[in-house]
């Protein structure tokens, strides 16, 4: 089963780290990511650039509106996403509990992916019926 792990960090704290501290953090994190890969737990993942690079789209007065910046302004910023392959939620917790990023004040939110297969099949059927004469 797949779990999305959202990694949050405190930008103020991150900016205040020395270069050698940062390097130590990256080294340990990347090494753990390699371990996850080697054991088939890594199903994908990306780091993302800081919140000020974000664009948010939404619907307003019948057309698309855009704002620069993140959807929600929070002290803790989303820093990256990791797709984890684990047997169940407790296995996912166990794997992420050992992630060195945690020891540097970061947090993870773990969410099981939703299985939309049934919904997609039902939707396909609706769309086929809509097309049929």
């Amino acid at each position, binding site marked *: *089963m797949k779990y999305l792990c959202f990694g949050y960090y405190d930008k103020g704290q991150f900016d205040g780290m020395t270069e050698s501290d940062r390097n130590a953090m990256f080294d*340990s994190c990347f*090494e*753990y990511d390699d*371990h996850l890969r080697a*054991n*088939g*737990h890594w199903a994908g993942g990306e780091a993302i650039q800081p919140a000020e690079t974000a664009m948010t789209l939404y619907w307003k007065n019948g057309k698309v509106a855009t704002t620069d910046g993140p959807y929600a302004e929070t002290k803790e910023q989303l820093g990256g996403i990791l797709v984890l392959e*684990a*047997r*169940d*939620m*407790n*296995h996912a*917790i*166990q*794997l992420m509990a*050992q992630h*060195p990023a945690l*020891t540097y004040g970061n947090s993870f939110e773990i969410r*099981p992916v939703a299985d939309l297969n049934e919904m997609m099949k039902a939707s396909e059927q609706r769309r086929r019926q809509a097309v049929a004469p």
Partner: protein
Amino acid sequence: MPPPVPEQLGRSIETLYRSESGRVLATLVRLLGDLDLAEESMHEAFAAALESWTLTGIPEKPRPWLISTARFKAIDAMRRRARFDGVQRDLVAHLESLVNDAPTGNGEIGEEEIEDDRLRLIFTCCHPALPPEGQVALTLREICGLTTEEIARAFLVTPATLAQRIVRAKAKIRETPIPYEVPTPQELPERLAAVLQVIYLVFNEGYSAAAGAEVTRAELTGEAIRLGRLLTELQPTPEIPTPEIKGLLALMLLQESRRAARTSPAGELILLENQDRSLWNREQIAEGVTLLEQALISRRFGSYTLQAAIAAVHAEAESVAATDWRQIVAIYDQLVRIQPSPVVHLNRAVAIAMRDGPEAGLTHIDAVLEHGELTNYYLAHSARAEMYRRLGRLDEARSAYEKALALTQQEPERLFLLERIRQLK
């Protein structure tokens, strides 16, 4: 990227996980001395199996392969942690010596030893220092190999709630620490009682969910029976009240034997008196009765055995009318002496009604209700309604059924009560 895993192999490994993970884990906990480490390395071993067996096929004896692979994965994990945590370095050395000295050079661990490991683990999971819901969750996950999500579905809680129970229970095991062992003979009776209670709780959770939509809940009865069988591996000694182990297993088998008969295709509850007894599982009844007889011979039996004895009287009767109610009341008389709970008193009152008629039953039920503990127990009011119905006092019957209806949320029970009320109009 590793080559894709053939679908067939993936399924075989999943089946293997179901049957072997509990055993592999139990042995790893003994070898490694740490539940979390054992669990993680077992998962790594199964993941490695997916990759390795794609090329080589499934080995003839997968279990030793898994245990041996997991041991090396555990050392890897400890080495990795030691790089970031100096304290762990000594632990690694200790672990390596443990793993290397383990008498498993060729991965051969005797069946008996494996079963002993499983017993140790079940006593750990059902340790009285853990909260009851933690005991149940851990037992189903660590011994039966169910996933967090499956257990959550079965107990109608969110996966996050259930995951938290498991995290807390594990932390408690680690911090207490709760030893990984079968209790000493002095502790055993009490500890065993806790294990039996967890197993029966699991069983009832599955059994009270009338079949149909909730398939996962129905599987719980199967898991409970498997656990009961596992306990029968305990070597009988003067301290171990094995009759109760057999009694519980007999009770579960005798109740489970009625599964096919107790719900209609539409999911409605069918009472014992209306069940098609040809649907009862004769094999389970025969096994249950044999176990029950063994438990009764010992004369050191307890409440599970007595409840099994009652179930056996029903199982052997051709109909409600042909049931030996005199004997059932006699067994209830013994049961109330060792387990004087209001529910047992209520059940005894219902049996008396079957023996002596509804008037006598009503007197006994009202006496039980007078104590007050069952005022909000829907079955007490439903039983009372039944007495009135049989006496032809229909208004009183209806109002008692309505009271019962207001006290239960379970759908099959509600459907049943609504039907009864409808019939009285």
